[in-house]
């Protein structure tokens, strides 16, 4: 009851405080995002509806493709016609905008909602610049899930693997059974994600952070990293000839149809299973590999708020930021999106078993690592993407060369 009245009163108060001159005028928020697929647009509608309930007017500017949407939003911001809010992946994509003093901070709201207490530490750090909060995180995506078709694993007499060594034994059996062992989408970013998934299991969080956060040569030259490279190279023999260039959802479809055994993909793949009428735990399974602790790669999405000339628009930004983090919004959004709520203080029993498992992992710092987008700038991630892709396709590059080139990237000026 109290919560509800707060929910009504606070936005009203914010609206009053923000736009005394235009009191009574509706808060308009133009939001640029890239959520255009079926499940995604259903999820973004949750934000729109909750914002409308809070007295705002949502103006939807959906632009397909993350890079396209970010480019459009950045160009408009630099050009002096900023949207009210713009989407980024949790991480370093908006660093330059903060440096150029183009973003408004949301520090006051963060203190009011006590973000420090309710957000996982890594997420909190990822939206903080110079001690101030500069974006509102809205969800958490696990990037390193292993999805498998239960019927296929049963057929070859295998149960859920716990690490890559076990998984490779199962892949070998699936291959012998004449199916595609690993459903794979051979595009650069998925090649990198597959490598990262192997690396986290084989080398653990210390090497992960050593590479992506500290850019340490020692981490890249460690025996554990080398073991990850060896295992990654082995996986080449478990993908089919049609994998280069394939889209990730087509690879998921292979697992859904029982033509393939497993897929490594972020939790957005769940949307494909759900759309095909499959249930987690019954038709398909999900698991995470983290032999050295820290098995959950945590990424996600945030919204940032460009500085506005018009005070009424700043008011709309605050209302929007607040609405996005409300408990109801968070749960409803996660159900539609396949992600998990970014807050650690919510009841997640209404989410599926994969999401519940993930929610447990974000409570415990030792179980997670931050995504590469959070740790390294896009230019460096791109260079690593190119390297992994070059290595994965064809046997021309030796494992030593791979390590040397990785070291060169870490030392480069990205």
């Amino acid at each position, binding site marked *: 009851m109290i919560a509800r009245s707060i929910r009504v009163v606070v936005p009203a108060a914010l609206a009053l405080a923000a736009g005394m001159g235009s009191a009574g005028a509706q808060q308009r928020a133009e939001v640029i995002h890239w959520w255009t697929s079926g499940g995604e647009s259903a999820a973004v509608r949750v934000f729109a509806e909750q914002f409308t309930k809070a007295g705002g007017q949502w103006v939807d500017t959906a632009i397909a493709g993350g*890079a*396209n949407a*970010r*480019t459009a939003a*950045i160009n408009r911001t*630099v050009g002096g016609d900023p949207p009210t809010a713009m989407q980024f992946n949790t991480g370093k*994509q908006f*660093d*330059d*905008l903060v*440096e*150029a003093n183009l973003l408004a901070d949301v520090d006051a709201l963060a203190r009011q909602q006590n973000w420090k207490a309710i957000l996982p530490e890594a997420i909190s750090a990822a939206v903080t610049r110079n001690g101030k909060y500069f974006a509102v995180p809205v969800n958490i995506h696990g990037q390193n899930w292993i999805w498998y078709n239960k019927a296929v694993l049963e057929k070859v007499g295998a149960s859920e693997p716990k690490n890559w060594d076990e998984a490779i034994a199962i892949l070998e059996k699936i291959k012998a059974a004449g199916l595609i062992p690993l459903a794979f989408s*051979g*595009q*650069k970013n998925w090649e990198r994600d597959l490598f990262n998934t192997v690396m986290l299991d084989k080398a653990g969080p210390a090497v992960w952070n050593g590479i992506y956060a500290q850019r340490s040569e020692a981490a890249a030259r460690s025996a554990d990293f080398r073991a990850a490279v060896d295992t990654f190279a082995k996986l080449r023999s478990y993908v*089919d*000839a*049609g*994998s*280069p*260039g394939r889209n990730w959802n087509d690879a998921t479809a292979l697992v859904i149809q029982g033509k393939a055994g497993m897929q490594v993909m972020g939790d957005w793949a769940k949307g494909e299973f759900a759309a095909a009428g499959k249930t987690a735990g019954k038709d398909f399974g999900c698991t995470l590999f983290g032999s050295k602790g820290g098995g959950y790669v945590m990424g996600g999405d945030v919204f940032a708020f460009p500085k506005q000339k018009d005070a009424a628009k700043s008011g709309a930004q605050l209302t929007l930021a607040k609405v996005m983090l409300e408990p109801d919004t968070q749960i409803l959004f996660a159900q539609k999106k396949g992600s998990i709520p970014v807050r650690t203080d919510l009841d997640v029993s209404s989410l599926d078993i994969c999401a519940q498992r993930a929610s447990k992992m974000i409570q415990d710092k030792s179980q997670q690592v931050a995504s590469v987008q959070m740790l390294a*700038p*896009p*230019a460096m*991630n*791109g*260079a690593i993407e*190119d*390297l992994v*892709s*070059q*290595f*994965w*396709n*064809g046997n*021309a590059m030796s494992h030593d060369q791979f390590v040397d*080139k990785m070291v060169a990237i870490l030392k*480069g*000026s*990205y």
Partner: protein
Amino acid sequence: MFARFGRFRSRTAAWVALLPALAIILVAHAGSTGWTIWMSFTSSRMLPNSNFVGLRQYVTLFNNDRWLVSIHNLAIFGTLMVVGALAVGLLLAIAIDQRVRAENVLRSVFLYPFSMSFVVTGLAWQWMLNPTHGIQKLVRGWGFADFQFDWIVRQDTVIFTLVIAGVWHAAGLVMAIMLAGLRGIDDEIWKAARVDGIPTWRTYASIVIPMLGASFATAGILLSASVVRLYDLAVAMTNGGPGLASEVPAKFVMDHLFERGNLGLATAAATSMLITVVSIAAPLFYARARARAQETRR
């Protein structure tokens, strides 16, 4: 006196009419080019800055495997695509020039690919060349179980699949240009050749084709332009893969400009492309200008 004023006035009118176009060219074209070159000497990342770093971006660029692969790929694609499209286009034109029946229909059929965008071309060829559901699967379905045509998923052959799609796309245009050239050749030459008893192929090889110089130049320039800006075909068909095997310079620029937020490196790559094009085009223009000057002197 009057005449001179009239000439002056018509000159002014011409200049006034040209002014908007000239302004657009100066600002949008030369201005952007200048800005791009300047950016390539700065440390700009996602947003432009003026922090001068000399040639550092160029050093990074020419140590970048992907850039080197891209240049190499463009050279292979450019050579094969231009030669291939010219050859196929010429053969089609000669075939149609034999006064075949249904000439109009055939001409439209051959010209049709050119009306499609590179994105559609790329997607269509991607589907056809995909080994798991394209030509390979079809032929295997006919009973040839060992048939293999998986060029698009192999690093050493993928660039040739881009050439195939490129030639398929452009051959019709070349055919149209060549056909116009062939039709422009005086019938007397053919009659004379026939009287002398020269076989048809020999007439084409030694007399007619050498007379098609202007057609070759036109087609060659059009094809070269589409080679340099090769981007959408590669994106739609292979997205640069497998690995880096079908990366091209324009895609390098676009990816680094936007997705990777590396303005400095992207503009260094763009500037390198410009330098390459200019260094190839400038001698050609110079030679042509000289030839023209000599002609007028004569």
